[in-house]
């Protein structure tokens, strides 16, 4: 199939494009993960917790569930506070395998699955940017989870354990 249009035709349309990110398509949800993230609402209808959750969201919820501050968490997994906040706030940040190991130990979740969840295969090439970040410890970040957050956290842990069982 060939597309024949003049340079002027393409240029006019490129200039007319709305200045927004361009994408289409339904976000991915692994079918098995979807099942694990479903729960039954008050009306008896299945509801979907805000899935798929990402690694950063999982760490944020798990840390608060354990009553840890960002500093506590950083100490626990042997990283600095800046990286701890980066892990929670940037869903594309990929921690070192060593860090994932310590997180798995600290939160008692399967390390192999957590490693996969953390996306350690994504290039971790923005250390210089991370170094420039100045973080202020957030006192509210130690607050307890509400019911919805707790359901989501449990769903994520269930997914990790389910994946682990599949592999085992």
């Amino acid at each position, binding site marked *: *199939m*060939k*597309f*024949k*249009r*003049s*340079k002027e*035709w*393409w*240029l006019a*349309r*490129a*200039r*007319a*494009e*709305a*200045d*927004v*990110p*361009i*994408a*289409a*398509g*339904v*976000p*991915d949800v692994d079918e098995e993960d979807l099942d694990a993230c479903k729960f039954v609402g008050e009306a008896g209808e299945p509801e979907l917790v805000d899935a798929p959750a990402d690694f950063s969201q999982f760490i944020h919820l798990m840390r608060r569930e354990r009553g840890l501050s960002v500093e506590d968490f950083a100490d626990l997994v042997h990283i600095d506070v800046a990286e701890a906040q*980066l892990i929670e*706030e*940037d*869903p*594309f*940040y*990929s921690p070192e395998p060593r860090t994932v190991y310590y997180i798995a130990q600290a939160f008692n979740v399967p390390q192999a699955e957590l490693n996969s969840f953390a996306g350690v295969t*994504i*290039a*971790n*090439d*923005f250390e210089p*940017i*991370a170094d*420039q*970040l100045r973080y202020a410890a957030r006192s509210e970040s130690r607050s307890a989870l509400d019911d919805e957050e707790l359901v989501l956290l449990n769903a994520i842990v269930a997914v990790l354990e389910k994946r682990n069982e599949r592999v085992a």
Partner: protein
Amino acid sequence: MSDDGSLIFLLDVSTDEAVEAELLCEVQECHINDWMGLWQPAMAKIRAELTARGIAKEKLPQSGHWNWARKIDEVDGLLDFRSFCITLNKVTQGLMRTDISQISQVGRIDGQKGKPLVYVDYLEAAPWNCSYHGSPVLYRGIGTALITAAIGLSLKEGYKGRIGLHSLPQSNDFYAKLGMTDLGPDAKCQNLRYFEMTPEQAKDCLGEE
């Protein structure tokens, strides 16, 4: 220019001039390699920069999460799916996968209901071609070129230019400005807005040379 490619032009934003690019009717391994080796690190860098600027998590880029290697691999050899890509200087600038099966998606607009269309499963421009909270854009025209390809496929299949897609929220204005009809949030597709193009709208979009 490869035998199966079409010469198109994109706008180089830095020079405001047209640059030659190629529209290909098949996503190949080299394009997937670009997605893995160039797109993902670029998206990670953009996200890190936006996060450092204090941009709220919900306003970070909404695309970038699709595994294009899997998207292309899962329809390999299936005649109901066609993939397209745009390259410039041998670098992949945009990717699209379409579904012409009519199994899950047919016309929804009044007067077009039930009629066949090309459904755009996935469409994405490379991270450096998208503006996120003022980040610079390298080339413009990728989205238009891919939609043009979808319309072309629709015409070739006898679907008269009808296409449909679910837009990510950050992209709604793009499809509205192209002249597609916004049928609103689709509860069956994570409440993404569904856009459809009629044969008449396709004709307007392609325009006269």
